[in-house]
């Protein structure tokens, strides 16, 4: 029999510490939707998604009310559209994004990810068409997310793609300038993208995935923060143990929900993604966990070490709690979506350079960072290249989701609303990377890619 303390502990996590399941994401293969006629392809995509995911939101809501755990988002990830659309003769893929948007509205999910292309070694014709369509597709839709993989440890970095993404991000920012360039919040540039990530904006349904699958992303920065308050001033061994135990509990909940959702939907269970995903709500911040470890403000010296410990302990605690762990699995540091990060960036304590260092030791990368609207495309490309290099050399996923906020500069604020939050605009280096970005070509894969 469960005892009172255990039950109260769980209720407190749910009630006061913002414990939730961040997302149930259904991965759907669209490979059978190919058609030379883009409108026929769009119709097939719409039909397939609305058929596979028609019960997704209802099942999510049912589980939420029966188990009493909030399930914040129900989402869908699809096969990279550049692959699905390769047979299309049309040069603009915007109609496919519009079909995805229509499907999202019909089934009631808040994002569909997978308007994506994998170009780490080079472009297909279709990859180019997709990237050229991005400014139009992402400004014509609200709930469609895109990711472009420009590097892997095995293939190196496609610097032509890096250059192209710099200009694409700028163009997308310009197209959505009336809403603080929010279009860029839906576009992630990856190195070593994973095929089963349930989190947006980077979710897509990889080529090695089954027809349909359920992946679940857990959350819980507030619970970890609260647990650490019981070990104030204690050595780091105890901090790590406390994080591990907490991560175990959170992940067990994720595993339960994932299996239950998969069973009810009649779809295989894929992975639980053990990520600490913050929200802009007070008490749900990764930055505050780092500060609880003894830092005056996130971004000061010691932040990288604190984040390294946190990221590792979350994985160690979580991995025992789930039968299959995957996705990004680590701590997220999206600046605009984390109340503590917003505060730290606002006071100038958290800089782009420090964030770059932090991405070496946690999952993903430079995420939801607002930069001045007049940042040159070549500078954005160079930031992407730096981040891709970190991912390539360290065998890890890194990403850039940078928002050059048109018409705004350092000291001003970009406001996106909802889970995307708001971000103070932080400076980039003023010195040019123009000649660097202009070179193009490929940065070769590192020696340790030759593992066979």
């Amino acid at each position, binding site marked *: *029999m*469960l005892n*009172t303390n*255990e*039950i*109260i*502990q*769980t*209720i407190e996590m749910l*009630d006061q510490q913002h414990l939730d399941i961040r997302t149930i994401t259904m991965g759907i293969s669209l490979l059978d939707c190919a058609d030379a006629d883009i409108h026929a392809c769009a119709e097939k995509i719409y039909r397939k998604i609305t058929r596979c995911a028609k019960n997704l939101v209802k099942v999510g809501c*049912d589980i939420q*009310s*029966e*188990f*009493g*755990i909030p399930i914040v988002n129900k989402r869908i990830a699809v096969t990279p559209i550049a692959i699905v659309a390769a047979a299309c003769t049309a040069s603009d893929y915007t109609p496919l994004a519009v079909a995805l948007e229509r499907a999202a509205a019909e089934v009631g999910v808040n994002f569909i990810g997978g308007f994506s292309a994998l170009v780490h070694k080079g472009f297909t014709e279709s990859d180019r068409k997709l990237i050229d369509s991005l400014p139009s597709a992402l400004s014509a839709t609200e709930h469609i997310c895109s990711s472009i993989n420009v590097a892997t440890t095995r293939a190196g970095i496609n610097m032509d793609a890096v250059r192209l993404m710099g200009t694409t991000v700028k163009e997308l920012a310009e197209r959505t300038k009336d809403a603080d360039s929010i279009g860029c919040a839906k576009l992630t540039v990856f190195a070593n993208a994973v095929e089963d990530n349930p989190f947006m904006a980077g979710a897509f349904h990889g080529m090695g995935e089954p027809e349909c699958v359920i992946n679940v992303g857990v959350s819980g920065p507030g619970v970890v923060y609260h647990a650490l308050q019981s070990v104030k001033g204690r050595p780091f061994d105890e901090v790590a143990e406390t994080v591990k135990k907490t991560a175990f*509990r959170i992940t*067990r*909940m994720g*595993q*339960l929900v994932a299996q239950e959702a998969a069973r009810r939907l009649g779809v295989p269970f894929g992975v639980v993604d053990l990520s600490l995903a913050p929200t802009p709500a007070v008490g749900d911040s990764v930055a505050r966990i780092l500060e609880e470890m003894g830092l005056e403000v996130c971004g000061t010296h010691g932040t990288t070490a604190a984040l390294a410990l946190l990221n590792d302990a979350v994985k160690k605690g979580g991995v025992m709690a789930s039968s299959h762990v995957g996705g990004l699995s680590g701590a997220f540091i999206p600046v605009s979506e984390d109340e503590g990060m917003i505060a730290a960036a606002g006071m100038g304590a958290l800089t782009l350079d420090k964030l770059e260092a932090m991405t070496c030791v946690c999952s993903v990368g430079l995420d939801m960072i607002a930069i001045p609207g007049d940042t040159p495309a070549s500078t954005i490309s160079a930031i992407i290249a730096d981040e891709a290099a970190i991912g390539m050399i360290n065998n890890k996923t890194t990403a850039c989701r940078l928002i050059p906020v048109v018409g705004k500069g350092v000291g001003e604020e970009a406001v996106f609303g909802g889970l995307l939050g708001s971000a103070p605009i932080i400076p980039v280096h003023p010195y040019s990377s123009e000649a660097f970005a202009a070179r193009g070509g490929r940065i070769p894969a590192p020696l340790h890619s030759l593992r066979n």
Partner: protein
Amino acid sequence: MKKAIVTVIGKDQVGIIAGVCSMLAEQHINVLDISQTIMQDYFTMIMMVDTAACPVSFEQLGAMLEEWGANKALSIRIQREEIFNAMHRI
């Protein structure tokens, strides 16, 4: 048997147990175990119940309990037992 946990937290007052139990009885819910304590001035009751014979949906049941509790400044929730087992039992 479909086991669930009912938790009632709030200011102590006359008739909490009687009220909750009669609501549950109306919905054909069998109470398997009750523990009740005062924690930090708050009345805290935990009941294990069997909802197998309950004619209304879990969602409706939860809403009914919540509404009844809200009128008395009590937080009442019902959750399936599995969530607590997952978190606290290996």
